[in-house]
Each structure stands twice: as C-alpha cells, then as structure tokens.
C-alpha cells in the first residue's frame, strides 16, 4: 500500500513532519486568511489598524523621546529613525505574542481535529507579515518626504532582515505556544516581557549610545536587524555585516529550538489543552 501510516506512542522528529506540513500548506494560508478576515470584520477602518499602531507609537515617541528628551538618532530625523525600528520591532513582538496564543486560542480544533499543529503558529506570524507590509508603505512615504533614497545594497539586505525577524519571532512563538498549552502563565508574562525587551533593543535610541553595554543588546537578534535596516534604508552608518550574521545565526537557532521543542510536546496538546 502506498500511503501507510503507523501510529506509535513515541514519535521522533523526522523529514515526514515537514512533508506533512508541506501537504497542508494551503491550510497555512487559510488560517492566515481567516485571521485577517476576522480581524478586520466589523471594524470601521479595517486594515488601517495595521498602520495606526506603529504610526501612533511613532508620534508619541517622537514627541517624548525625540523632541522633549532629545534622544540622539544618529543624525537622522527622529520620526523616521524610530519608525524604522518600530516597524521591525512590532513585527517581531506581535508575531511572538500572537503565535504564543495560537494553540490555546484555537483550542476546539486542536482538541478535535488532526492537522499539523505547526500550521497555527506559522500562519499567525504570516498575518503579521501582512501587517508589516502594510505598515512599510508608511515608511516608504516618510522616506520620500524626508528625501531618503535607500542604497542598492539596502534593498538586497531588507528581505533577509524580514526573514531573520520572521524566524526569530516564529522560533520564540513556537516555544511559547507549546509552553502556553500547559502553563497559562505565558499569557500574563509575555506582554511585560516584550515591553522590557523593547527597551533592550535599539528601537527608540541608537545603539551607538550604549558603548560598553552594546553586547547586551547584541544578544538579541532584533538589534542587528534594526541597525541593519536603518543603515541600509537611511544610510546613517555602514551595515555591520558581522552583527547581521550573528543575528541570522541566533534567529535560526531560535527557530530550530522552537521547532524541536514544539514537536517534542506536540502530541500531547490535545490531552492537556
């Protein structure tokens, strides 16, 4: 028989898990599409919410940190400086937060239907990618307004930065989603945790002011991403390739860790969710 399946008590992560995920790739899209559709249903401004959040945050930060506190911004106008950081940061943090709730929030289907569980967190981060793309339009507008033309190298680096952010967000999200099934503490701890983490990432200030503490920031893959994004789009500094590579490696590490942990505990989700 061609398509035999064996069910055993213990299952190890294997290539077939990824084949299965591939077979269910349409489900990924359907979940993402469902989340987007439901999210903007019965909202007056619809998809503009994806823009509103980074935009409003940018205005508040510009007023307090840029104008009143005069936080340096590497010679770049503060609004565009902070917006570039926020764009990537919110992609990361919202992807992380939503992915961590992806299983618990879909409890009925997890308990009643079989499908590759990875589909849920992955599709959640995909919807954030859509939000990211929408919010990026504002950045393009701001660049025009302030007269910035991205370096050619920048345009090449940007997709890589998006992928790094995606991996880091998904890797962390997978781990937290799996933990959340068992320990509902995640839901309460995470908003606080991401808030703290934002201050440990050069979103509202340039990494150049951190001096000897820079290594703390560099542990976080988003530091490299945000710095490289600014460097490539705004040209405030040369791209730090070393740091970029480090970010890429850390995010790949996070992704692998997330997948391995998730797959290890996955089979018992339906029993304990």
């Amino acid at each position, binding site marked *: 028989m061609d*398509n035999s399946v*064996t069910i055993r008590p*213990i299952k190890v992560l294997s290539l077939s898990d990824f084949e299965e995920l591939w077979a269910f790739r349409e489900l990924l899209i359907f979940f993402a599409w469902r989340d987007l559709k439901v999210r903007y249903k019965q909202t007056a401004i619809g998809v503009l919410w994806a823009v509103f959040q980074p935009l409003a945050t940018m205005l508040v930060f510009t007023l307090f940190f840029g104008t009143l506190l005069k936080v340096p911004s590497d010679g770049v106008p503060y609004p565009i400086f902070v917006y570039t950081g926020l764009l990537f940061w919110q992609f990361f943090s919202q992807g992380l937060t939503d992915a961590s709730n992806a299983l618990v929030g879909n409890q*009925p289907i997890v308990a009643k*239907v*079989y*499908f590759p569980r990875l589909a849920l967190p992955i599709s959640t981060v995909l919807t954030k990618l859509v939000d990211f793309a929408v919010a990026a339009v504002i950045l393009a507008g701001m660049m025009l307004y302030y007269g910035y033309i991205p370096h050619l190298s920048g345009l090449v680096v940007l997709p890589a930065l998006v992928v790094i952010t995606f991996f880091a967000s998904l890797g962390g999200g997978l781990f937290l989603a799996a933990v959340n099934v*068992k320990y509902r503490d995640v839901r309460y701890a995470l908003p606080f945790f991401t808030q703290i983490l934002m201050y440990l990432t050069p979103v509202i200030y340039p990494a150049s002011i951190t001096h000897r503490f820079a290594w703390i920031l560099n542990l976080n893959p988003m530091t490299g991403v945000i710095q490289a994004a600014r460097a490539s789009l705004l040209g405030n500094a040369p791209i730090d390739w070393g740091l970029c590579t480090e970010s890429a490696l850390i995010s790949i590490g996070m992704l692998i860790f997330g997948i391995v942990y998730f797959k290890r505990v996955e089979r018992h989700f*339906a029993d304990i969710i």
Partner: protein
Amino acid sequence: MTTPIIEIKGIGKRYTLAHQNGGYLALRDVLARAIRAPLDLVGRRTDQSARFQAKEEFWALRGVDLSINRGDVVGIIGSNGAGKSTLLKILTGITPPTEGEITLHGRVASLLEVGTGFHPELSGRDNIFLNGAILGMRRREIARKFDEIVDFAGVSRFLDTPVKFYSSGMYVRLAFSVAAHLEPDILLVDEVLAVGDVEFQKKCLGKMEEVTKTGGRTILFVSHNMGAIQELCNRCVMLESGRVIKTGTPAQVIDYYLSRIKRAAKDLVLSEDTSLPVQLTRIRIENQNGDLISEVEMGEDAILVIEYVVRKDIPSLSVGMDLHKDRTSLLYSLDSDLDESLMAATQVPGTYRSRVVLPTSLLKEGHYGVDIVAGDAAGELKLSRGAEITLSFGVVNTRKDLTHKSFRADRKGLLYQPLRWKTEPMS
C-alpha cells in the same frame, strides 16, 4: 482475504487525572514544588506517598486489538466512558497511544464533532473552504465539490451570511456536508447523527451508505443509536472499560450489549467490618419494577436502596445521600433528618434497609454518583472504613428525540424538566 486496512495492536491509553479544582497547572505550582523539593528529600517516605495519591491514573483503553478490512463499516458501541471516542482520537492522530501500535493503509478523515473549525464571523462560503482545509482537503478539491456541498446542506440562500446567524440545524447540515464530501479511505464518525433533524439524519445515513457501497470506503462509526448501527454496519465492536469485549455482526453484538447493560447493574456489597458502630453493607439502584439497574432512562425516577448494620445504640441516627454529577457539581443532598420521629428515636442494633426515591427524572443524560453518609447528634459517623461510599450510575436517553435542542447532553443546563411555555397575545 485482503490485507486489513487498519491494524490495531495492543493499544492502550492512560490518562492522569490531576486533582485540581478545574484550574490549569500554573508555572507557579511547578516552581513552588521545585523549591519544596529539598524538603521532600528529608521526609521522602510520607511525601512521596502523598504525591502518588494526588494523581490518579486510569486507562481509557487497554490491550485493544482489532483489524478492519477495506470496505468494512464497523459500528463501535459501549456505554459512556467505554473508550470509544478515545479510540477514534488515537486513530486520527489527535492524541498518541500510551502503548501499542496502529498501522493504517490509507488516508484518514474524521468527523469527531461537526463544525469544529467553523468560525462564527465568517460566511458559509468561507467556512466551507476553511473547514475543508482543516479536514485536509485541497482548495481545488473543495472548489470542485462546492456546489455539491451547498446542495446537500441546503443552505444556498445563506451562503454569504456569517454562520453565527445560522440556525443550529443549518450549521450542523453544512458541517456534515463538508465532511461527507471528503474522500478519505477511512472515515471515522463519532456520534454526529445525534444532532440534526430526523430528515437530515436519514439523508446522512443515505450518503454514508452510498459512499461505502460505491467507493469501497472503510468507516468506523461510533453511536448510541442501535438502529443506525444495525442498518449501516456489517461489523460491530463492543467496548467496555477500555477493552474490546465482543466483536461480530451488529445483531449479535447489539444483543450482547443490551443484555450486558442489564447485568452490569451495580449492586455494591461491602465486606463486614465489626469495628464500626454503623456499617453500610449493600447499596443499589432499582427501577420502579424492583429490577437492579445501572442506567436510568432520562425522565424516570429510580429508587436508592441502602442496607446497613447498626452494632450499638445510636441516638438520632440519620443517613443521607449527596447526588452529584461528574464527581464535581453537587446537585442534591438529603438526610433522613426530615423525619422527626426517626430523629427522636434511638436506633437499636440490627440490620436495616432504607429506600428513597432518587430524583433522577430531573436529570439530563450523564454520569452521576450518590455518596452515602451517616450522621448522629454527636457528629458524623463513619459508615465504612472509607469516609464515603459512592455508587455511580448513568442517566441515558434511548427514547426521546432531542433534535430540538433543550436537554441535549451537550447543551448547557443540568436539569431535565420539559416545561411548556404558555404564550398568548397581550392585546
């Protein structure tokens, strides 16, 4: 003989019941336990036994062996908690077995609960695609069968209406229709026919029949509806307490099942313990005819009979019962202290039998238990070595058509009391 399409070998599933009050395990508890761990090391003995008691294990399935041939339609029957749904859940891969192995030669699809994955905010059209994808269909496949699905469900006028506005009947019809158009080699069906109106149930049975006859599809079908099993299946399996206890033709197995239900009636007889001043010796539940039963038909009362020995004079002895559901909600509590003359008297040594009507006619389908307790003026007395004695029983519905919502087991509310609204125009 063809090779079996499903081979189940020694499947077991163990669940651990954590005795917590419905809450989720919080990280806090685990950390607290870890911090206390050094202390545990000191008083290892006592603590370990305490920890063992806090967790109760039970095997939902044990040592299940079955092989099912291509094209078989197998009915799975058994009383509530026999392990039927657990078996289907393991077959779909929703939950892993604790031991054993299953080999499946073909694509599996399941209908464990209709409409899981439906999103209330989305339209019927969107939900067909979403639900189809969750069940493992490709978009192209869904698109090809779209009209057929809509026709079968009869919801074409409401395709663009969010399903939250659907009546429950429409909802179920649409959900079943999506699943019925899957083309798996093995279809697992769990009690879906318990919902939906009679007309639609017939249509579904027809569809399932057509599919098995023409498509050679293998179906595992869990139901309490013996009629449907009889009509649809060519084989039948009976589970009890997680084990297969009978396989054969539907007629054979159903006969056995029905006779077994009567015999399984619980008659709790307790061993003598002369050290106790009052001891329960026997408890049971009887129907109106005095037959021993373990399942009560919904809407009917039953009689609780308790027998006990009194070994010394006990002033104002009162026996009582606590009726509870699923070991959690206490529904009703009654003592014999209502009877003033009993309370005033001293119960002299001897054996006694007390009967009381158990108000089961008020209860919906489900698992219930009665705890028997005894008390006297001085405080509570022990009736046995264990603090309480529980007799469990089920309330089942085999006669009433609950298509129309109220009192269906899965709906909210604990009581069965079919009262009628009286409505009249006000002006």
